[in-house]
């Protein structure tokens, strides 16, 4: 009986796809250096899956006034970054609308994932901006967004 259960378990492990860990969002291994340098200097080089392809397109086309900053990227680098973001973009249906201009902190998915965070923390000087993933998710640069690994102890689960 034990053996059957074990066989069944191993069989399932082989057949079923591994569970999708939504708190693991590492950058794709072929992420272009231009993305890390151009986009990752002022803020985290965000996982492309956090916005839909359409919202990335709108973000890229508006870089001249990117939340008040001229973040324009020229020529080859700009094309490379746009192609990369669109290729690895998230599913628009699952993310929900990101607003206008698109903000990855305004998608329905982001809001749902963070609904337990009390309002006051968003204004905490340690956090500054909801897009400052690393303020709480200390492993964000490596793609670790686990709720067990939060740098602000009161928010850890």
């Amino acid at each position, binding site marked *: 009986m034990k053996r059957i259960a074990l066989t069944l378990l191993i069989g399932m492990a082989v057949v079923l796809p591994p569970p999708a860990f939504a708190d693991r969002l590492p950058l794709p291994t072929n992420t272009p250096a231009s993305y890390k340098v151009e986009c990752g200097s*002022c*803020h985290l080089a965000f996982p492309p899956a956090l916005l839909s392809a359409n919202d990335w397109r709108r973000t890229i086309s508006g870089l001249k006034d990117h939340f008040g*900053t001229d973040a324009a990227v020229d020529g080859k680098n700009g094309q490379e970054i746009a192609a990369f973001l669109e290729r690895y973009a998230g599913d628009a249906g699952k993310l929900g609308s990101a607003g206008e201009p698109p903000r990855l902190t305004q998608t329905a998915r982001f809001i749902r994932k963070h609904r337990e965070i009390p309002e006051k923390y968003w204004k905490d000087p340690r*956090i*500054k*901006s909801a*897009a*400052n993933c690393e303020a709480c998710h200390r492993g964000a640069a490596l793609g670790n967004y686990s709720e067990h690994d939060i740098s602000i102890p009161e928010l850890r689960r």
Partner: protein
Amino acid sequence: MRALPALCLLLASFTSHAETSQQIRQTYVAEATAQQAGFTPAGKRGEALFRQRFSNNDKMPACTSCHTDSPLNAGQHAITGKAIRPLAVVANAERFTDSAKVEKWFGRNCKEVVGRACTPAEKSDFVTYMSEVR
């Protein structure tokens, strides 16, 4: 002949990372001298520029808005909160070793904070201060 310093900078950018802050400063000094005979860079003027408050951007009125009051300290982007490594060469050996990167950030930050492009003289002074400050 006037384009020579710019050409040097361009050539240097192809061989990035092999530069020192002295070389990068020299390039700016050459450019400044071409505009103003007898120019000598001064760390004190560089420090004044670093601390000066401009009225162009209320979220980032000065270099210090993100880089803190001391270039020896790590900074934090005033809007996004992202950590910024120190500007001073003594605290961060990677500073001013890649002329393309230096030009890019003078370009962006001068426009955003000062509200115009910085002059070669200002860049010379700034790099001098960041190389000397202890």
